[in-house]
């Protein structure tokens, strides 16, 4: 039995094909696109909101996407405790939707940050625990950071 991922496409998304292809490379996983106008998640096992510039980032990044029919469905889906992954702009959509705490602000340095970072799994109580290494290292790039949450501010991918 394969696990099916829904990959959301908003007008202005641009990383949805990357997400789609990455999922299709996993043994036992399949991907399908979910267009922003759909209110039906079609029984997918997990949802990925990819990066890009949903709705041109008008007003604030993620602010308009939040009110699309697909996000209404995803909000209910997430509140049922089902897995939703937001990457880059998708992460910002989840913050604007109130599914994640905080908001994203430009880096205080006013500089674009691009470097290799070390990542440690802080919470093992997630569906990723069996596959995710305890610590890993990956390239990171961003001109924004997460603010307004109680833990110390962390950089977030843009």
């Amino acid at each position, binding site marked *: 039995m394969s696990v099916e991922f829904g990959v959301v496409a908003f007008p202005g998304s641009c990383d949805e094909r990357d997400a789609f292809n990455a999922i299709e490379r996993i043994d036992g996983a399949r991907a399908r696109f979910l267009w922003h106008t759909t209110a039906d998640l079609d029984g997918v096992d997990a949802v990925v909101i990819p990066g890009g510039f949903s709705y041109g980032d008008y007003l604030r990044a993620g602010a308009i996407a939040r009110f699309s029919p697909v996000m209404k469905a995803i909000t209910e889906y997430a509140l049922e405790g089902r897995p939703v992954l937001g990457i880059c702009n998708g992460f910002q959509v989840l913050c604007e939707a109130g599914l994640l705490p905080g*908001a994203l*602000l430009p880096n205080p340095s006013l500089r674009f940050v691009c470097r290799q970072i070390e990542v440690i799994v802080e919470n093992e109580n997630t569906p990723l625990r069996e596959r995710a290494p305890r610590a890993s290292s990956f390239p990171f790039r961003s001109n924004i950071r997460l603010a307004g949450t109680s833990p110390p501010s962390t950089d977030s991918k843009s």
Partner: protein
Amino acid sequence: VDPWLAVKVRVLVRPKEGILDPQGQAVERALPALGYEGVSKVRVGRLIELEVSDKAPDAATSRVREMCERLLANPLIESYQVEALPDDEEGK
């Protein structure tokens, strides 16, 4: 008589007090390069103008405040100010 009025409303959205405003800082640093010295405390926000149909200016502005909470501003990081404009003040 049509009880609905078209109320012009102006919303000013600003980075909250105490929230770092890198956009304002970038502008502040750029001004001296053009010869404008002595400029400080630059804050960059957003101006939104709307025309709202409602029965009274008060009702219109309270609806706009609700719009601010939900969409026009992000209350976590931005403050907003809502103002009903008199009819003769257009396109300023």
